[in-house]
């Protein structure tokens, strides 16, 4: 089942720490309760987003999935702003 979201952030090609830094900024621009979908190609983002969601007070990691596009692996994260 597809997770519903309010906005997409494309960080394909961006390397650590940029996917997370940009997501953090984008989450701050959402309204409380809204969901951000982050599309990354950096495999390290999977574990880092999990750790970040545990650390940050206003972020909930709803789900993560993988995909494929033009032969490269995609790592997709769904994050909700909680406060």
């Amino acid at each position, binding site marked *: 089942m597809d997770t519903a979201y309010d906005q997409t952030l494309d960080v394909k090609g961006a*390397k*650590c*720490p*940029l996917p*997370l*830094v940009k997501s*953090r900024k984008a989450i701050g621009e959402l309204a409380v309760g809204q969901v951000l979908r982050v599309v990354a190609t950096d495999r*390290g983002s999977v*574990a*880092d987003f*999990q*750790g*970040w969601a545990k*650390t*940050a*007070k206003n972020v909930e990691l709803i789900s993560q999935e993988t995909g494929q596009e033009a032969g490269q692996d995609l790592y997709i994260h769904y994050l909700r702003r909680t406060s």
Partner: protein
Amino acid sequence: MTITETTIAVPALQAAELYERLLHDPTLFILDVRNPDDFRRWRVEGRAGLESLNIPYYEFLEDEDGAIARLPRGREVLVVCAKEGSSQYIAELLQQRGNKAAYLQGGIMSWGNYYHVRPIVTTADGQLVQVARPARGDVSFVIISAGQATIIDPLRHTSHYLEIVREAGATLTAIFDTHVHADHISGGPALAQATGAPYYVHAYDAIHPIDMLPARIAYTTLEDGQVFRIGQLTLTALWFPGHTLGQMNFRLTAPDGASYLFTGDGIFLRSFGRPDLGGKGETWTPLLYESIYQRLPRYVDDTTLILPAHFSDLDEGGADGRFAMPYSALLQTNDGLAPRTLAQFTTYVLGNLPVFPPQYVEIKRVNIGLATPDEAQADELELGKNICALSH
């Protein structure tokens, strides 16, 4: 005063400099900004007293002051991450906040693939060069004498060996693996293909111990007692089963009477090779016992320099990273070699087995040609430090 946007230049430390500082700089402090799982799995290790701390980079983003407060005051911090991006980012942040910081260029991946080359014995008869991958605790050797060279236990990145042989103006006559390794991918078959020199390994190790499938690489088997000449030097292959069924020791003798023993994963400086990586620890333990207590003493004397394929921590290399010790000294310091009955030895072994890294089964497949990973998969398989020794 005008405020301009400037990036503060943060010093980048290369893997070679990191190694020097791990060996010689007791003030080194490492801040690892990867996530806790990655840190737990593998980190930069140094001497026993090395101080390091794991604070993931996102904790600095969420609570900059709190994270900085956990760092030692007034002390330079070396920031480390997977590939360097986050460590550079955090090092810049620390500099802006008045903390001295540098970052590891290329991240922990470049440290993992760093090779340190140094001659450890040079005489009129030849030269013995130690080629180590300090992050993994892997050690290999190039022996050069009178225009001939051989390699023992070459590691995956073969260019280092080709360069040593080329610089010595020598011809590579043979490539040896003491055994089929479980912890790292051998450079042996690739070197044989590149140079035409024969690749030797014992045939017992050419059957995967778990899969029971035969090797798909070209190799020549070794016989117990088989003799090879390298210029002025003589190399004798000696069977030492236990860590693997085909584990060999290589005894090198020089005209000056000096002797050297390349033990592979037989005995190490502070331990010995675990007998369970073939999945048959209890069956292979008596073989190992016989090798250590009966075979080994027959072909070493007190002065024989023992040169293993691994170390577990940097202190084993003494002051300057020379991972070798005379047999007599080893008997004093290596508790694994203390006199024991077979029953005591078995209890000792089975009580000190570390975790069995699951990728070790696959690495053995790779080493006998049953699997062919690409570069990224090979890096992934080799992640971390070897766990070939018994705990001690």
